[in-house]
């Protein structure tokens, strides 16, 4: 049986892992290669590495880290942050990433999804959708939450899937870093509207939040960051809990 995935996310800036609250206020959380290896040994099902510095100088350093992580772990990992073109995608894949997550770039130019699919296959592209509650539902934000994108996150999710994105990474900006739990209504709206796998992101603070995203929210995977980085819980503890809740989990 296909299991649900726990995916630690490492936000990388200037060669270090950091974690912000609501996209701001960054705290240091260690060396990304060490953390990646530790999470892999702990039973992480995949990893995500986000380049949140995304400066020109930081770019080369980030790709070096991607190559080191590729040698250090034997599980799939996705890289994202500042990827603007098909060339950037290929550089990340050649450095050893299995998938790339695209956010602002595909909002700006949705055809990039088809271009990447043609070059590297659907499985290589994760459409990252940063959603913020609006009066009528959820709107899409880009550039780390600082600029407005499509007005309707659910419609954008459907379009991204239709264009060929293999997975959707759905982040609630309202919940990100809050520890109050994933936005279950947002997840339900999107998982009910697409047939590609959906990764829930933003808001995990306790084990029950993961369960709710995977059951009530209908998500196929959960992204976790702060809840792990500061030792509040561990991947084995989360997996043990989810298995007890009858959620299919890789031991």
């Amino acid at each position: 049986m296909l299991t649900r995935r726990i995916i630690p996310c490492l936000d990388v800036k200037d060669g270090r892992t950091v974690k912000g609250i609501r996209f701001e206020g960054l705290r240091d959380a260690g060396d990304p290669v060490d953390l990646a290896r530790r999470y892999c040994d702990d039973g992480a099902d995949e990893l995500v590495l986000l380049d949140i510095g995304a400066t020109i100088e930081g770019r080369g350093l980030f790709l070096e880290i991607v190559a080191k992580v590729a040698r250090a772990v034997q599980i799939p990992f996705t890289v994202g942050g500042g990827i603007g073109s098909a060339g950037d995608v290929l550089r990340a894949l050649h450095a050893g990433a299995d998938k790339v997550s695209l956010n602002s770039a595909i909002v700006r130019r949705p055809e990039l999804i088809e271009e990447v699919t043609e070059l590297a296959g659907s499985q290589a592209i994760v459409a990252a959708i940063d959603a913020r509650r609006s009066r009528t539902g959820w709107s899409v934000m880009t550039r780390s939450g600082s600029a407005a994108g499509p007005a309707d996150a659910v419609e954008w999710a459907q379009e991204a899937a239709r264009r060929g994105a293999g997975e959707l990474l759905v982040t609630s900006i309202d919940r990100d870093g809050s520890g109050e739990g994933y936005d279950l209504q947002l997840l339900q709206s999107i998982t009910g509207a697409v047939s590609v796998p959906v990764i829930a992101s933003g808001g995990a603070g306790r084990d029950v939040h993961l369960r709710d995203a995977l059951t009530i929210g209908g998500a196929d995977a959960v992204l976790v960051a702060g809840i792990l980085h500061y030792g509040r819980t561990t991947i084995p503890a989360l997996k043990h809990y989810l298995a007890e809740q009858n959620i299919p989990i890789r031991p």
Partner: protein
Amino acid sequence: MIGIIDYGAANIRSVCNALERIGAGSFVSGDPAQLDRATRLILPGVGSAKSAIGMLRSRGLAEWIRLNGKPLLGICLGMQLLYEYSDEGSAPCLGMMKGTIHRFTGNDIKVPHIGWNTVRPTIPEPLFSGLEDGAYFYFVHSYFAAISPQTVAVTDHGGEFSSVVACGNIRGVQFHPEKSGPAGLRLLRNFIEHC
């Protein structure tokens, strides 16, 4: 020496990293003359069947793969390419395994099939040496091979499909052993030592 067949599209780095990890010598090439030096072959693959088979043909690799006779392991799309035909892009493939590759359908399953799923051997096979029944491997694919006489292990995603196939010294795995942690590394070692 393992020859990793490079036809210009596949993400080959992770296969190289995994072989390095288990201390197996390997080289990457898209040239039949160089690949002739290999004792075993790995045909990796991501992307679409149609473009992959086109690239294999244009490099003179399709015919060479069919005829060289060395033990071969096809991974993911590399396994699907071994079949006669793929519905993905309506592409005639290498024809080393009987059958056609179809797309997953059904309202109750997610497509692509992405994540860790169990692999249940249906007949004894050296690739599974030392692996437990129902070990977890990492999958990512939208097309699949139906169960057939070549099936040696099955996986369930809205019904069972072939996750490992074997025919003579040709083998294919639908999952990515190079991305499947210790179980995947063990399977690669089994291919090198027992197949």
